């Protein structure tokens, strides 16, 4: 009978002490990224007789395009991990871009928004943009955790209002003629560097800090999180504020790169950001998600955009395909969820 005992224990002993890592979801997303890239490479040779990948210029432009969406997607990822959603990031980006630009104008310009505050060093407009973003996020977070309204509604309200505020700020006029000093922020590969730095910071924060562990716990089961001594309300406010801060950062970079602040900036970026997160394996049900996944998700969106343009596919069709991909990502998420909860319900 003692032989009967232990198929399980034998397994336990071999794997028990050394904590074996399972293959993370990122690997499969990375494979999707590689697959899509190779597909465009093949199509490139067939359709245009040219290489898609072996063109550093194109790759840089693609990554540049994605870095702003990537930055806000990292904030949105954290919100989704808590079981929430942030629809306001695109609008907050626009508002932050306007405010940032208004503090970055050069004194050569006659119609500056604040004629007395021109030629300021770049750090000041950047700080203004970050502050505006963080404030918007703070309002989102406070609304959600103090009034208990669903995040979808709170951030939908912010999405509409922040866009309105961005327009009202200068009566719909663009804010232009920014100082070279400030234009430096978004020049060259800087946005990419900032994006990667932000990704590294929050990858570490989610994985190795109390902040991160609480974020996952709240998404996995808010009631149990509270009973485990987590101040759930306060933590949610912090998470939404960080998401706002990152949207603000995106706005500052966008203004710097374009050399102007416009109220129409970042239109539908919130959806791209959510898409990047979901494609990257973040679960809309909460409790699951990683920054690395979101970065790859953003790259997938970028490769698609750049690939279709390279092939000369019309923008309308690009949107159609993007829609399909987003839905497919959510279906994949549902499938994973079902597989997870099939075990013990």
């Amino acid at each position: 009978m003692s032989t009967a005992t232990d198929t399980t224990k034998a397994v336990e002993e071999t794997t028990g002490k050394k904590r074996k890592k399972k293959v993370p979801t990122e690997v499969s997303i990375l494979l999707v990224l590689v697959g899509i890239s190779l597909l465009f490479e093949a199509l490139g040779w067939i359709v245009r007789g040219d290489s898609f990948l072996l063109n550093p210029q194109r790759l840089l432009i693609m990554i540049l395009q994605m870095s702003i969406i990537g930055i806000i997607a990292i904030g949105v990822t954290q919100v989704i991990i808590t079981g929430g959603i942030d629809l306001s990031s695109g609008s907050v980006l626009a508002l932050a871009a306007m405010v940032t630009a208004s503090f970055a104008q050069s004194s050569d310009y006659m119609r500056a928004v604040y004629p007395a505050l021109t030629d300021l060093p770049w750090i000041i407009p950047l700080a203004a943009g970050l502050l505006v973003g963080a404030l918007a996020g703070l309002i989102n977070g406070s609304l959600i955790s103090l009034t208990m309204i669903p995040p979808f509604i709170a951030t939908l309200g912010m999405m509409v209002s922040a866009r309105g505020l961005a327009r009202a700020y200068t009566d719909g006029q663009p804010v232009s003629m920014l100082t070279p000093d400030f234009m430096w922020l978004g020049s060259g590969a800087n946005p990419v560097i900032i994006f990667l730095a932000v990704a590294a910071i929050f990858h570490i924060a989610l994985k190795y800090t109390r902040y991160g562990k609480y974020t996952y716990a709240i998404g996995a089961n808010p009631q149990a999180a509270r009973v485990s001594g987590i101040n759930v309300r306060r933590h949610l406010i912090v998470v939404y504020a960080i998401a706002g801060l990152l949207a603000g950062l995106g706005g500052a970079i966008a203004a710097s790169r374009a050399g102007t602040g416009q109220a129409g900036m970042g239109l539908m970026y919130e959806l791209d950001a959510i898409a990047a997160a979901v494609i990257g394996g973040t679960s809309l049900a909460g409790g699951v998600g990683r920054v690395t996944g979101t970065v790859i998700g953003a790259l997938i969106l970028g490769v698609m955009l750049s690939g279709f343009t390279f092939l000369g596919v019309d923008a309308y069709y690009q949107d159609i395909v993007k829609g399909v991909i987003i839905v497919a990502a959510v279906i994949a998420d549902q499938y994973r969820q079902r597989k997870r909860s099939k075990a013990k319900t």
Partner: protein
Amino acid sequence: MSAENTPSDTNEYLLEVVNARKTFPGVVALDGVQLKIRPGTVHALMGENGAGKSTLMKIIAGVYIPDEGEVRLRGKPLTLTGPLDALEAGIAMIHQELNLMPFMTIAENIWIRREPLNAFGLVDHRALHDKTQALFERLGITMDPDMEVRHLTIAGRQMVEIAKAVSYESDVLIMDEPTSALTDREVEHLFRIINDLRAQGKGIVYITHKMDEVFTVADDISVFRDGQFIHCAKASDMTSDEIIKLMVGREVTQMFPKETVPIGDVVLSVRNLSLEGVFTDVSFDVRAGEIVGLAGLVGSGRTNVAETLFGVTPATSGEIKVNGTSVAITSPHQAMVNGMALLTEDRKETGLFLDLSVLENMEIAVLRDGYTRSGFVSQGVLDDQCESMKSLLKVKTPNLDERIGNLSGGNQQKVLIGRWLLTKPKILILDEPTRGIDVGAKAEIHRMVTKLASEGVAVIMISSELPEVMGMSDRILVMHGGRVTGVVPREEASQVRIMELASSPMGADAA
């Protein structure tokens, strides 16, 4: 010892499982397992936590597809591709964890996917209500069918699950630890229902860790260990010691290892604590080293008192003193700052992070002083602590990175106990601590609680199992209808005395 001893007054088995095998990554949950259910009998499954009982039942109920083996209903092989197939075939299951929709009414939950429809194809709420009422009358349940499930206690929810399973009128009814959240009174009620079903010729599979129940209700008993079938016999041919020995593979020593330990100063002092509409004027003291039991029927307010002490539902009036100083506890966080820990009753709702790992579940309450440095978690230290807690509590899991939802119910419970032990509390509140825990591990946990008490921890323990409360406590506070109806010292504690106080609002003479 095995197949030959199988009861065989009838050649016709209602349900048979032959040579079932089921593996999960890193775990062989079942291997070469058999089970034979006679019609009109109650068949108890016994085995330690993680022995594979729930897995076997899920195979019968179509939730899992076995890697090998066969399920036969009345001798005919069954191929089940999902739970709906099983229901169709006449097999219903009450799962170990509750699965009701909190925001739907009792009636809606019971008839989900089978709602009576009116002429327009919409749900006929009248008929829904009436059908539920009729079912409840038959089962002797007194609950309002239109009440939302979230307002029910766990015991109430369990009764709804039972009613739901019975409503399928299936031939085979599987009950996976139905009584782990019930008090004696509801257990008796359940047994009446089971006896009825048995008289109708149905086959009932009954999983429990409570030995006395087995001998009250079961006709046959099958014992499992580590995914293997060990033995099957008639209940009348077995003794509780034999079963335990078969389950554990060794003798289990004395059940309630109560020690007399030096009693220290008052650590927790509660005066006139009230939560409006729930309980009133609860007062008691707990001293260092003391174990105070909280007894009472379901709905008496035991769990509410625990949750209020811990700040889950802050008190509306009254005073809580810790070490002589009055403290305001408005959140679990504050309670923890004051040295408290609460193991909650409902592990799925307020305990587990099902999608997170065993490690993440265990460490979550201790990510503060000592284990973090300026926000960064000292993972190495925590890994070691959790690893030794895992071995101490004998949690059966391939590794600490396993998703906790994949652990057996009893092992999940052990992880939650570990979570709170890691916080090194001064005041430990345990609400049904041994819920779903097997006999061997139970004794182990009792020994640990006793040891903590001897180290000066003040313990409050709620349990629906009177022998557990009586065996462990120095003093027992009995509640009824939101009031303390009496305090019984250990020496005077008897089942009769406690039940008296628990059931009569007038038992208040002793208070």
